[in-house]
């Protein structure tokens, strides 16, 4: 019974980190689908979200306002990044583009270090930190924030991509950019939109996890890689798969940390990543194609 309680506890906390990975991975997938680029600066948006929120709170703005300002800061960074580094390159190879995103991530990280120093900063929990008891396990109110915001974001983006004409246009671009241009879709604008969406979602992920993990200029590296891992598990072009991939990763990590050793926590994620890349590089949820040529 005690073992069960322990497992339940690990799963619960795994779920909340998994939700974060899912959000970050979702950001990877959105940009990958519209541009074919794996944006390794994705983690920096996550870092910017957390640190900028703390920055605005320290300037005595209330939390909701700080959150909005922080998302705006990260989104603006995403827009500038797209405009300056991605759009001018017309015929760059994928490898060059990946290198550019890595360069951008180093630049953004360096900027954050100059701005906020190398210390870790703390964002207070959104609504206290009295634990809530569920069966034998406890969770923090912040976990509830993480769950509900993640669910909300995923529901909203499903609505956006399946219902709105802009969302459908982005899916069309992801599938075939040339044909998208031929029906009147401004492909460059869709690429910009994808950067806006993914930097906003990434920064939000950074904001909601900041009270649990603390923030510093370099948190984006690891979180970004975990999000990448989630997206790979789910298969890059599969939004729902990315979410499940993130949750799976979070839970496995948390179980591994609990039962094996906490120091192997990160190793677990990368072992999974390598296994997926070796054996099912298209992700574990890819269905057989139901299409004719």
């Amino acid at each position: 019974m005690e073992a069960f309680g322990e497992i339940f506890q690990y799963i619960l906390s795994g779920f909340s980190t998994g939700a974060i990975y899912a959000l970050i991975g979702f950001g990877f997938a959105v940009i990958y689908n519209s541009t074919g680029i794996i944006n390794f600066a994705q983690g920096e948006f996550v870092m910017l979200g957390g640190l900028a929120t703390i920055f605005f709170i320290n300037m005595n703005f209330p939390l909701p306002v700080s959150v909005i300002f922080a998302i705006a800061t990260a989104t603006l960074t995403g827009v500038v990044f797209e405009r300056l580094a991605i759009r001018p390159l017309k015929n760059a190879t994928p490898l060059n583009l990946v290198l550019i995103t890595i360069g951008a991530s180093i630049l953004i990280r360096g900027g954050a270090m100059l701005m906020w120093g190398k210390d870790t900063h703390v964002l207070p929990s959104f609504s206290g930190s009295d634990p809530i008891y569920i069966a034998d396990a406890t969770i923090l109110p912040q976990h509830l924030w993480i769950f509900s915001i993640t669910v909300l974001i995923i529901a909203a983006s499903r609505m956006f991509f399946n219902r709105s004409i802009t969302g459908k246009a982005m899916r069309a671009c992801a599938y075939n950019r040339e044909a998208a241009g031929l029906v009147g879709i401004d492909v460059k604008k869709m690429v910009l939109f994808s950067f806006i969406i993914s930097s906003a979602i990434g920064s939000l992920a950074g904001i909601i996890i900041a009270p649990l993990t603390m923030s510093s200029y370099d948190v984006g590296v690891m979180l970004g890689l975990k999000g990448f891992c989630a997206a790979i598990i789910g298969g890059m072009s599969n939004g729902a798969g990315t979410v499940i991939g993130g949750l799976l990763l979070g839970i496995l990590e948390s179980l591994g940390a609990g039962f094996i050793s906490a120091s192997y926590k990160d190793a677990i994620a990368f072992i999974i990543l390598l296994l997926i890349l070796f054996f099912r590089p298209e992700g574990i949820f890819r269905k057989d194609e139901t299409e004719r040529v």
Partner: protein
Amino acid sequence: MLVIKNLNTYYGQVHVLKNVSLHLREGEIVALIGANGAGKTTLLNTVSGITPARSGIVSYRGLPVQDLPPHRIVGLGVSQVPEGRQVFKPLVVEENLELGAYLLHRNKEGKEEAKKNLQMVYELFPVLAERRRQPAGTLSGGEQQMLAVGRALMAGPRLLLLDEPSMGLAPLIVQEIFRVIRSLVEERKTTILIVEQNAKAALNLADRGYVLDTGKIIMEGAASDLLVNRDVQRAYLGRDKKEIWER
């Protein structure tokens, strides 16, 4: 309606279109025929803004359009049905059609027009209405071609560029698609530039034709004249010399 003058287009170093000039009058069907690799698709893609010209003029209703991006050209009323259909396979049929009217979604009147166009396309191709909720990738080749034509019509184009609409399709379906093309011209006064390897079918449909050979226009004239022209027959209509000799 469309005037192309001294057009030169390159793919990297390869000079694909060499000083091409042609024109279309309003309400006309013009066929562009030629062998594989002659540059027919490139010509359409240059008009559509996908493969911009290096030099020369493309003017649509008096407006130079050779430097505009594809979405602006669609906005002016020039739609292309691309080679190989290129429907959005993961999206359902109706989403494909909606996206055809993407530019109309900017305002209310446009949305109304998009709805009307959707009804029109479903009347033209009833099979698309039956399959409206199916992913486009599950359609047969002929149905995908109908969807590609329908998607282009959703924007309400005044000039329709058709790239190899008969490619890989059964003769009966080709007839069906050509019937719709003919009705577009009669009922909606759409102007059409059609590119075909199936030269006979295209020339039967068209008023005038151009023959493109390795990037140059080598012949032009009334479609009925081209159909009986011996050089055209020999090169593109699949009649060998002997057959023509015996006639």
